[in-house]
């Protein structure tokens, strides 16, 4: 019937276009996310380089040296004194859970209930719980070996990233951990989501109650350096103003003691990231995992630095196989190769950072800046070598919550639903019985009563991604302007859409289909030409200010890095840094970016942001000042703010969405009795 065919043709085309849009949206989020991770790795490398190349008395060195003082040589009694919780009083007015150790199952369940009701655990109990956790973890091996004997089905969860609703949903559907319901949590419990500390406390509590039935693997985000950028540090300091610093220090130790992998029935390996050609479980079992920590790569530094994505060619693809792949041979310095003989750092980083790829071989993971990409042949070799049959890993967000690859020998499992945006993806967990065949349960935590249709979820996620992309475009305004002017030698102020796409691709270094995205980023054109000054106006509103434009653009583009450096410099974690320290921070940043900033420009900036006039700069207020107005059809619920550089707006209450590269919520102010 002709009518039927017409409708079917039309609808199928519609579905295909939606699918394409969904994939593009995914690409946007992912490429921005990984570019951020890469940036963090570079920052750390850079700071390490500074450490080695500045004289001991240099002020820059003093600012940052403390993050390189890893597990300082310190005897246990000293640590015990530092972490002592006993003199922390709990006021009578505190209505949260009061823990009595050794912790019981009722108390663990009570914690879950309390967090569900948005209560906060008092810092005294937090420290106590963490101390007990630390003691337990020190006794665990690098690789947990467990079994499905007695017909026990083991439940395995992937990344949670501070999304408490997902953990609660899993417990609701699957039951809380118990002797009959053993769990393995595969890393990345923290960062990005807003309830990272609550998730940790729950997982640790259950682990203390059932040490043989709750197993935690370390993820790449269980790392205090990463936490500086991706929100966990901020969350803890926000929720625990008095004792946050101690809690973070104790967590630093706990993270370093988390086991690296779990093996079930000697057949299934569970690890957060994956493998490399160097991975050998026997070697991994023997390392001192808590002593292994980041060291920047002396062999690789210094190399020309670009502050955006990979740097092999001007339009660097994010795919692992560039035209000049970076093989891991002795000839080419590998990406993140510590001193292998001594510390096996790179093998451990490989476990936590690597991603699978479709091609055979093993190459450096330049997209993330750490670990590698490994191919199906590596999987095959590895499984045969260790007599295993399946690798379960996480680390990458997947639309359906899970995905097989490498001939179904590698399974990616991701448990944070709606990770990029509401409706972007489902989460999943697995149950594994003695037959070792994974059984999947998918879910999507949402406070909406009805599931979003394909159209709604794509639309919403897309809007979010486009907003993030617009922010990136705006942040690169100066460079884009130069690039456009290259095409517009006669200074007409107009540029063809083709040239627009080329220029944007060259400046942004994000491997995205700009021509396809163009219609959503450029709305007013005349005969296929664009007035680019007008277009910049479309992207944002800015107050005129006496501060130099380039400086503002830089600040905006590198907010995340700047904030990270702030938090490193803020040694007492007070949220305030002095003018002088701010000047030094700025100098560090400009060295990192290889930019020249005059002292005058910095002074202007400093004066304009000290609203308290008390000679110090509040980090949060400073970061608040640089946000983008989204003029194009933002849904009313999206928060927006004006860019103000001459004065700061008062600190806004409530949550806000921060950068595209990190999902951070501001704490709503900690309850005064819980600090």
């Amino acid at each position, binding site marked *: *019937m*002709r*009518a*039927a*065919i*017409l*409708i*079917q*043709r*039309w*609808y*199928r*085309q*519609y*579905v*295909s*276009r*939606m*699918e*394409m849009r969904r*994939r*593009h949206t995914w*690409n946007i989020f992912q490429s921005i996310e990984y570019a951020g991770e890469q940036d963090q790795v570079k920052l750390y490398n850079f700071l390490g380089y500074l450490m080695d190349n500045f004289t001991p008395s240099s002020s820059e060195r003093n600012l940052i040296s403390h993050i390189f003082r890893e597990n300082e040589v310190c005897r246990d009694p000293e640590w015990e004194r530092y972490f002592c919780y006993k003199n922390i009083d709990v006021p009578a007015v505190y209505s949260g859970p009061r823990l009595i150790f050794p912790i019981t199952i009722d108390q663990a369940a009570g914690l879950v209930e309390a967090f569900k009701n948005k209560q906060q655990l008092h810092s005294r109990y937090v420290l106590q719980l963490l101390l007990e956790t630390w003691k337990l973890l020190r006794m665990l091996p690098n690789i947990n070996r467990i079994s499905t004997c007695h017909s026990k089905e083991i439940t395995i969860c992937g990344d949670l990233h501070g999304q408490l609703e997902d953990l609660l949903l899993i417990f609701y559907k699957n039951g809380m951990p118990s002797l009959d319901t053993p769990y393995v949590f595969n890393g990345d419990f923290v960062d990005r989501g807003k309830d990272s500390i609550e998730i940790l406390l729950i997982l640790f509590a259950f682990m203390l109650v059932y040490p043989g039935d709750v197993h935690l693997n370390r993820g790449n985000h269980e790392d205090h350096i990463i936490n500086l950028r991706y929100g966990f540090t901020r969350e803890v300091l926000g929720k625990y103003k008095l004792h946050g610093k101690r809690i973070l220090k104790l967590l630093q130790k706990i993270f370093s003691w988390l086991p690296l992998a779990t093996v079930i029935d000697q057949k299934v390996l569970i690890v957060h990231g994956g493998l490399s050609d160097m991975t050998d479980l026997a070697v991994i079992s023997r390392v001192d995992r808590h002593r292994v920590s980041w060291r920047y790569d002396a062999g690789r530094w210094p190399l020309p630095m670009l502050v955006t994505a990979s740097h092999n060619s001007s339009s660097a693809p994010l*795919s*692992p*196989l560039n035209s000049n792949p970076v093989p891991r041979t002795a000839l080419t310095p590998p990406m993140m190769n510590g001193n292998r003989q001594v510390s096996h750092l790179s093998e451990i980083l490989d476990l936590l950072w690597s991603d699978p790829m*479709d*091609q055979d071989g093993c190459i450096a993971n330049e997209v993330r800046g750490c670990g590698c990409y490994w191919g199906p042949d590596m999987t095959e070799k590895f499984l045969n070598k260790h007599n295993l049959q399946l690798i379960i890993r996480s680390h990458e967000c997947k639309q359906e919550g899970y995905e097989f690859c490498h001939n179904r020998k590698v399974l990616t499992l991701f448990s944070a639903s709606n990770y990029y945006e509401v409706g972007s993806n489902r989460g999943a967990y697995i149950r594994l019985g003695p037959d070792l065949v994974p059984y999947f349960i998918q879910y999507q935590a949402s406070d909406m009563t*009805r599931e979003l*249709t*394909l*159209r709604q979820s794509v*639309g919403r996620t897309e809007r979010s991604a486009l907003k993030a992309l617009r922010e990136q475009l705006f942040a690169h305004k100066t460079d884009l302007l130069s690039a456009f002017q290259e095409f517009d030698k006669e200074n007409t102020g107009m540029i063809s859409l*083709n040239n627009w796409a080329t220029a944007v691709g060259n400046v942004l270094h994000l491997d995205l*289909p700009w*021509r*396809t995205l163009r*219609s*959503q980023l450029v709305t007013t054109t005349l005969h296929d030409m664009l007035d680019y000054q007008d277009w910049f106006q479309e992207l944002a509103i800015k107050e005129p200010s006496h501060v130099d434009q380039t400086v503002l653009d830089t600040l905006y583009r590198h907010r995340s890095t700047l904030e990270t450096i702030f938090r490193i410099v803020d040694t007492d974690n007070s949220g305030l840094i002095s003018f002088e320290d701010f000047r030094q921070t700025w100098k560090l940043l400009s060295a990192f970016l290889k930019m020249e900033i005059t002292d005058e420009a910095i002074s202007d900036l400093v004066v304009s942001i000290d609203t308290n006039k008390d000679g110090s700069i509040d980090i949060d207020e400073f970061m608040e000042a640089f946000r983008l107005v989204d003029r194009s059809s933002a849904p009313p619920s999206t928060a927006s703010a004006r860019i103000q550089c001459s004065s700061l707006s008062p600190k806004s209450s409530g949550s806000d969405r921060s950068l595209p590269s990190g999902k951070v919520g501001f704490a709503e102010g900690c309850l005064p009795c819980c600090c």
Partner: protein
Amino acid sequence: MAEDRENAEAIISEVHKKISDAFDVFDHERNKTVDVREIGTIIRSLGCFPTEGELQEFITEIEEEEATGYIRFERFLPTMTKLLMERKFRPIPEDLLLQAFEVLDQEKKGHLGTEELTKYMTQDGEPFTQEEMEEMLSAAADPDKNVIFYKDFVSMLTVDDK
């Protein structure tokens, strides 16, 4: 004259880039091939509205002599370029679409029942799979009344098209 040729070249170059972008989305192994089952999505996302039959013809034309299950970009590009330049498989005008729905709506109620629509879509023409049907219903059906107000449905989806 030279300018025309330049323009024509520029246009073709743009078309090539668009096709390449769309193709790359499904080129998982980065070796300029895609699974043949994704060709439909790629073609449609570029703005074409082929029937399943026309799609199959297209695929047969660009497949290898011995079908491998994969389509190579070198074969895809010229044929796809031709399709776009000739503007084959033009978009369907909204009024034509409405007429089609009205044909199905024999009683001229202004809406179709979910069972009614399901019957047509899964039995006539080039039948939908169950999955396709469910997705269409979830987007189209008014959840309270269990009917599809097709005029609204058509407007809604057409707005999404750029």
